[in-house]
């Protein structure tokens, strides 16, 4: 009897090890529609390619802020996923959480997987690396701010529809002519802080804050209350009095003003193109963001938006090995090329960009190359690597509180920017205090 039990248990052990369940790796994301389909394709392909690991992708929220909160709450409860998708403005918060996250360069080195930060577009590598060039998270979906204009309205207003405004003075002139022709609105902008302040500053090679926009440490302060930014917002403010410029909200809401044809020009994310191609009933074109020609060094390069994959801390070594293998799979040329071409996002590796260019994709899909050319316009400087400030999502709201007060005529633009810098700095000090460990 005893030997029978022994044999039975031995048999169980053997069968368990022979049919060892694959190590499960949880991936939380915020992708919807075509992007969600792509996430599932990537995961299925990886799971089918080997038997040791199984990645489980879970859609958690459409909202990056909420996904970040769910991740943090899960970490505090000890149930964090292995991989989570965090938006670019959450970078400083994530990297300050030493121990709660596992830097990607470390993960890949420990697992012995090949990982070369130089294989990514420099604008992307820069945004997600430490000051000494170590990459903290895995690039996944990237975008940047670009300019769109309605060719039909341009033609009606007597402007050349094949010639995009290159500079802000040209864009303002076009907007005035469009407004004078009886069109309800010349120009609008989505994601005001991202397109008109963060990208605007990088594009003009002027600092957004001290310490290389926060890359040099948490003891940083904002610098965006400078004459260039103030002049830009004063012009926008003047132009909105007669509808030449229209403020339509803080994030994506103004995109509706462009799709409906009400506003003839918009600055917004490169990811907007897909929506526009499906819904616009007019001819349009994309262009690089306008700049002020009297600012030395402009145009520099724009900065990215979107999200990266962060690996959470405190997991088992074999799970980390699986994450590393999955990231290697994700970095493969064909996976990257499909990511770029099937979704509205930018290619994140140089190889995927070259391959897509060679295939003639950009000739067939005009507008898809504009954001890449703009990101690659010049090698990033300390003003154009990106912005790395703690509590940035909150600070963006604090800035918009002031900008809206200025647009409503309650305070001057200068006062608004000074207040925003002061309130933003207060948040930075609060972040510095809790992140100093």
């Amino acid at each position: 009897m005893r030997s029978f039990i022994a044999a039975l248990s031995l048999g169980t052990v053997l069968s368990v090890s022979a049919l060892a369940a694959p190590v499960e790796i949880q991936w939380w994301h915020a992708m919807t529609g075509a992007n969600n389909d792509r996430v599932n394709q990537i995961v299925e392909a990886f799971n089918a390619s080997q038997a040791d690991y199984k990645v489980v992708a879970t859609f958690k929220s459409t909202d990056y802020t909420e996904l970040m909160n769910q991740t943090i709450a899960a970490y505090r409860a000890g149930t964090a996923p292995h991989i989570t998708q965090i938006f670019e403005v959450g970078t400083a918060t994530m990297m300050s959480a030493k121990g709660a996250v596992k830097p990607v360069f470390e993960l890949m080195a420990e697992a012995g997987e090949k990982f070369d930060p130089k294989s990514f577009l420099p604008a992307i590598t820069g945004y997600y690396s430490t000051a000494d060039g170590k990459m903290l998270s895995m690039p996944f979906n990237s975008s940047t701010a670009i300019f769109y204009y309605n060719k039909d309205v341009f033609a009606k207003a007597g402007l050349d529809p094949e010639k995009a405004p290159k500079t802000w003075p040209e864009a303002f002139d076009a907007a005035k002519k469009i407004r004078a022709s009886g069109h309800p609105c010349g120009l609008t902008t989505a994601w005001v802080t991202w397109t008109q302040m963060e990208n605007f500053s990088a594009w003009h090679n002027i600092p957004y804050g001290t310490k290389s926009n926060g890359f040099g440490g948490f003891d940083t302060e904002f610098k965006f209350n400078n004459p260039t930014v103030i002049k830009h917002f004063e012009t926008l403010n003047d132009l909105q009095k007669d509808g030449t410029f229209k403020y339509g909200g803080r994030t994506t809401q103004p995109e509706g003003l462009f799709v409906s044809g009400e506003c003839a020009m918009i600055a917004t994310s490169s990811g907007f193109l897909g929506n526009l191609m499906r819904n616009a009933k007019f001819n349009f074109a994309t262009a690089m963001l306008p700049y002020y020609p009297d600012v030395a060094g402009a145009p520099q390069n724009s900065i990215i938006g979107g999200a990266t994959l962060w690996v959470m801390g405190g997991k088992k070594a074999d799970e980390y090995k699986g994450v590393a293998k999955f990231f290697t799979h994700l970095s493969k040329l064909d996976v990257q090329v499909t990511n770029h071409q099937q979704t509205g996002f930018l290619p994140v590796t140089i190889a995927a960009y070259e391959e897509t260019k060679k295939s003639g994709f950009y000739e067939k899909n005009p507008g898809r190359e504009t954001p890449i050319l703009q990101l690659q316009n010049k090698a990033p400087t300390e003003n154009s690597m990106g912005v790395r400030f703690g509590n940035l999502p909150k600070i963006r709201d604090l800035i918009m509180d002031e900008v809206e007060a200025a647009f409503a005529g309650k305070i001057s633009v200068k006062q608004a920017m000074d207040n925003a810098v002061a309130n933003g700095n207060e948040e930075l000090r609060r972040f510095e205090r809790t992140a100093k460990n």
Partner: protein
Amino acid sequence: MTPASSAKAPFQNKLLPLMLLLPQLLITLVFFYWPSVQAVQQSLYIEDPFGLSSEFAGLANFTALFKDARYVDAFLRSLFFSAAVAGISLSLSLLLAVCADRVVRGATAYKTLLLLPYAIAPALAGITWMFVVHPSIGIVGRAFIAMGIEWNYLLNGNQAMGLVIFAAAWKQISYNFIFFLAGLQSIPQSLMEAAAIDGAGPAKRFRDIVFPLLSPTAFFLLVVNIVYAFFETFGVIHAVTSGGPSKSTEILVYKVYSDGVVGLDIGGSAAQSVILMVIVIALTFVQFRYVERKVHY
């Protein structure tokens, strides 16, 4: 068993009543006491979002709040907002209830239609109204502009406030309506008839009989509406204005969200939650004392 003995001791076993209470007690413990204790605890610390470092701060989070002009503004704004929401929804629903009470034909249809908004989630109510009044796409918003009104609640704080008050009050009208209607229908017909015979007209009957007899209902609804305006209007505000423009619709409960969830200020938002908890406890206390002692039929 005699009736007397069963009335004296319905439960022979002392464990049984406890067992029967247990599920409710557990729910209260898990969903109220536990988070409340945690909120109080977190309000005394300054902490990073991940809970990696934590520093005892005493009452610093609370003193910082009351020194912050933006918090004091949000506090005053909440008082105005809840007074406006409660005032508008109570008076409109009383009017509707009095009208519905008099309707003879098709009364059920009117009542059903008036109750429908209650079934709509606050966020959906907000989105629905936004589509109606949006300056570019909303039918009413465009009509305002066509009439020459400078309608743009994206920049005009007073218009934004008016809009969220309206949407929040609209949603609460149904709830108040049911209670007022039930209250009206429980007023004995004989009283009204007697007053009518004595020569009291409809207005006098309403003032001297109906209104006093409705006062317990009205007081109960006042407290419920203030609590609603303080705590449950988050969805409306989040969907319509996100607290903007320039914080002009940021009430206390929205500030907890924007500081805690967007700003990741755990200690500060916990302190705000504790203050909100004190407010709701005070309101409940007032309600019980007042309803039980002062309002009689």
